[in-house]
Structure formats: structure tokens, C-alpha cells
């Protein structure tokens, strides 16, 4: 390849890196900018660097509460999915039973169901169960909506576990559950790690369910909080930027720390 082609390709790579990173950089700058500094242009370096925006949204606008609510809901959804999807994925990957194809097709169909398409009935059902304005009312449907993806991904992961090891464990007369926990789970650990990360990510990003289910201010999640801050204080740009950063910082840190797990998980659930 000649030098010109290579250099112009490097430029293309750099332009797209700028496209990916510039908006994030811009929010970072805005979140550390004082109000007086606001009109020096969006790209000027903030000076003096302010932490006031973070302190204000964290303490006064309720973001400490929103943050813990999001954490609580996302952890609960993740635990719920981890307790259910690997078992189901294993059943589809390694066990023989009547109706296997039909049940698997039922799960596959759910892979693409958007939350807005079931909200009309779901909302009434949650009302009837007394789950409107409770965290459980967000956790259960969210775990359910993530179930097809999780089961599909776990089935792919479990197919890799060698049959001989499973047979060896059942020959000892152990129950299927005991064999699953002692033999299969340790072998499937990287896959389970990916599932954990992705379910946590999706759950933290969720907007529609917490938006319609939660009404009390102190129960709301960080995505709902950030969106309503935008409407409420139309001019507090520093505050909104700080809120946005608080809302995605945990995800970015998780992603950068475990990039491999993330990417493997997303592509495993996607293609095969």
C-alpha cells in the first residue's frame, strides 16, 4: 500500500474517533464550567475548574437518590436474570425434552419485542398487582424483557461445555442441579461474566419502564432524573452536564475495565 493511501486512511480513523469522543469531551468540559465561564465558547477550557455543578445535582437535585435507585434496580435485575437464564439456556443446550423446539421458538420470538408494544397491557397488570410506583414493578418486567436475549446467549455459551464432563458428573449419581452448579457453572464463567455486564448495562440504560412505573420523586432512576432535569432547569447547563456524566460514568468505567467481556457478550447473543 502506498504511503498516501495509508495516511489518508489514518485520517479517516481519526475523524471517526473525534466523532465518537468529542461529545463526551464536551460534556466533561461543560460539567466543570462555572456559569460565568459559559459564554467563552463550548470548546474553551473551563477555568477555574468547578466541582459546584456535581455537588449541586448530587445533593440538591436528588441525584444521590437517583443513583442508588438505579444501582438497586440494575443489581436486582442482573441477579434475577443470573438466577434464571443460565438454567434455561443449559436446558436448551444440553437436555432432551418434549416441546423443546416450540419453547425455544417462544423465547426467540421475544428477542425483538419492544417495551412500548406491551406497555398498554403491562401498565394495567402492574396496577392490578399494586406494583405501580414500586421498584419491583420495574425490576420484574425489565428482567422479563431481557430474558430472551439472556437465554439465547446462555444457550450459545452452554453448548461449548463438553458433554463428557456433564456425563461424568451424572454417572456419579449426582442430581442434574448439582452437576450444573459444580461442573457447568465454573466452566461457563466467562460467559456468565459477559451476561452480568450486559444485563447490568441494559438495565441501567432503561428509560421507558421507570418513566411510566415510578411516580414518587425519591423512587426515580438516574435516566429519568437526567431527562427531567433537562426540562426543569432549562438553563442550568453545568448541572445537566454533571448529571449526564454521573448517569454514564459507571457504564464507561465498567466497559473500559472489561471491554473483552462486553464485546464477546454482545456479539455472542447477536450472531452465530
Amino acid at each position, binding site marked *: 500500500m502506498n504511503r498516501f493511501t495509508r495516511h489518508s486512511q489514518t485520517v479517516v480513523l481519526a475523524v471517526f474517533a473525534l466523532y465518537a469522543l468529542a461529545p463526551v469531551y464536551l460534556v466533561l468540559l461543560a460539567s466543570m464550567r462555572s456559569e460565568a465561564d459559559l459564554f467563552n465558547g463550548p470548546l474553551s477550557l473551563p477555568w477555574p475548574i468547578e466541582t459546584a455543578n456535581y455537588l449541586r445535582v448530587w445533593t440538591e437535585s436528588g441525584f444521590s437518590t437517583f443513583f442508588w435507585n438505579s444501582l438497586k434496580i440494575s443489581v436486582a435485575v442482573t441477579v434475577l436474570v443470573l438466577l434464571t437464564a443460565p438454567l434455561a439456556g443449559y436446558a436448551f443446550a444440553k437436555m432432551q425434552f418434549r416441546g423443546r423446539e416450540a419453547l425455544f421458538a417462544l423465547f426467540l420470538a421475544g428477542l425483538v419485542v419492544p417495551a*412500548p408494544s406491551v406497555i398498554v397491557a403491562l401498565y394495567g397488570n402492574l396496577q392490578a398487582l399494586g406494583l405501580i410506583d414500586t421498584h419491583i414493578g420495574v425490576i*420484574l418486567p425489565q428482567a422479563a424483557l431481557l430474558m430472551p436475549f439472556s437465554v439465547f446467549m446462555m444457550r450459545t455459551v452452554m453448548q461449548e461445555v463438553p458433554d463428557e464432563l456433564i456425563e461424568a458428573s451424572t454417572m456419579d449419581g449426582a442430581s442434574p442441579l448439582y452437576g450444573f452448579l459444580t461442573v457447568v457453572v465454573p466452566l461457563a464463567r466467562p460467559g456468565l461474566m459477559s451476561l452480568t455486564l450486559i444485563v447490568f448495562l441494559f438495565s441501567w440504560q432503561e*428509560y421507558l419502564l421507570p418513566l411510566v412505573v415510578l411516580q414518587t420523586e425519591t423512587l426515580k432512576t438516574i435516566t429519568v432524573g*437526567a431527562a427531567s432535569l433537562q426540562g426543569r432547569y432549562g438553563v442550568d447547563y453545568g448541572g445537566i452536564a454533571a448529571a449526564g456524566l454521573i448517569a454514564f460514568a459507571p457504564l464507561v468505567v465498567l466497559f473500559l475495565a472489561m471491554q473483552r467481556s462486553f464485546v464477546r457478550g454482545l456479539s455472542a447473543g447477536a450472531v452465530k
Partner: protein
Amino acid sequence: MSSRPAYLFLLPALLLYGAFVVLPILQVTAYSFFSWDNGIAQDFVGLDNYARLGSDGVFWAALGHNAIWVVLTLAFPLLAGLLLAAILAERSPRTIQMMSAIYFLPRTIPLVVAGIIWGWIYNPLFGLLNYSLDMLGLGNLAGAWLAEEGTALVSLNVVGAWTFFGFCVVIYLGAIQSIDPSLYEAADVDGAPWWRKFRDITVPLLKNSTLFLGLYAAIEAMRFFDLIWVTTQGGPGYATEVLTTHVYKTFFLVGDYGYASVLSVVLLAIVLSLSALAFRLLRVK
């Protein structure tokens, strides 16, 4: 071997999924055939609610916007992802790792936050976009991007693309790395330039990834809601209305159970057909 252990393994996942996804789908379908008063089903009216689709201009506009969204996604992030992956594949493993992390990063950001960030960039008074155009002496191109009917949908698609192109890079990279290197070596012997190897070897051999990403993009284009809701709520006018926001408004703002259910069924029918098509074409086993 008996089927019992398998059913027990499946039961918890099936209960959760059945109660909060399958059951509501069946209910919404049933709701769509009834007339409603104050949230209470009255009479079975057959397809009467469906007949309203024909004269509902917002529905057709929304469907059109969903379709435009698919086309724009195929034209920009998918193509960009393909090009970037082909370029990256020839670089060192460290560069590949670092650049794909950078490209993928926006996908970890909640769409709500992405909408807020880009809402600023597009802000007509102090946004980065108009500011940059001014700096470049192109101030006459400045506009109120999200507030004008002509630019709102395309501007939002740039945000969608921002969160999606890194995923395309990752998928394409995985596929390129499994292409037999001897094909490229043979082309090098013939002295083929880069773009010809790209056109004649890379692109044709990535057909399956393109098919997968295209269908994935089409399904996502029908499903998305957050981005529109935090930025334009379907406006200005109905310029960025999509099927999901139309369902939301018909149910939560108008309180029309019957017709909101009809729209939900239509939405479900479209995504399920696309997904069935995807599984068929990609031959998922």
C-alpha cells in the same frame, strides 16, 4: 431420560417471561378487538379499531419516519463501520483494540443521556455545531437543527449513528479477521490497489455480516423510543414521530386503549416479521 429436570430448569425463566412479556402480548391483541370506555373494555367490535389506521395520518407519517431511519442507518453507520473495519484490520493489534474501544464507547451511554448531549450540540444559540460552522466561516449554514421539520429527523439519526457505528465496526472486524489471508496475498501479487481488494474481496465476503447488521438496524429502527422522547417528543409538528412514540401518546396522553392496542399489534407484527426473516436468512441454528 425423563423431561422433568429440563422443565424444572426452564420454569423460573418461563414464568417471568410468560407473565411479563407473553401475557401482555396476548392481552394487547385481545384489547385491540374491543371498544373501551375509561379503561374498561365494553363490546367486541371486530376490526373496527383497525379500520381507523387508514385515516390516521400520524400513523402513516410515523411509519414513513421509521422507514427513513432504516435507510439512513444503512447508508451511514453501516457503511462507515465497514470502511473503518477494513482499514483497522491491517493495523497492529494494539491499534485495533484501542480504536474499537473508542468507536464502541458511545454505545455504553444511555440513549437518554446521548439525547441530552446532542440536544446541546444542536442548540441554535450556543451549540457546538453552529459555533463550529461560524468559526469555519460557514455561519450561513447554521440552523435550529432539532426545531426545524426539514432537519430534525436526519439530525437525530446522526445521534443514533453515533451510538451504533462502533457496533458495526466490531461485528465487521470479527468477520474480516476470519477471511483467508491468502486471498489478499494473491491480490497483492497482481498489484491490486487497496480499494479494489476492498471492493472485490472484503465486501463480498462480508455479505452475511452486512445482512445481519442490516436486519438488526431495521429491527432497532422500529423499536427505538428513548432518543426521540428526550429530544423532540415526536416534534416539531409530527416531523420525528415514530411508531413507539405514537403508541405512547395514544395510550398515556389520549387514554385511547383500543387504538393504542391496535398500534401496539402493528408494531409487534412488524418487528416479529423482521425477526423471522432474519432467522430465516441467517439460518440460525
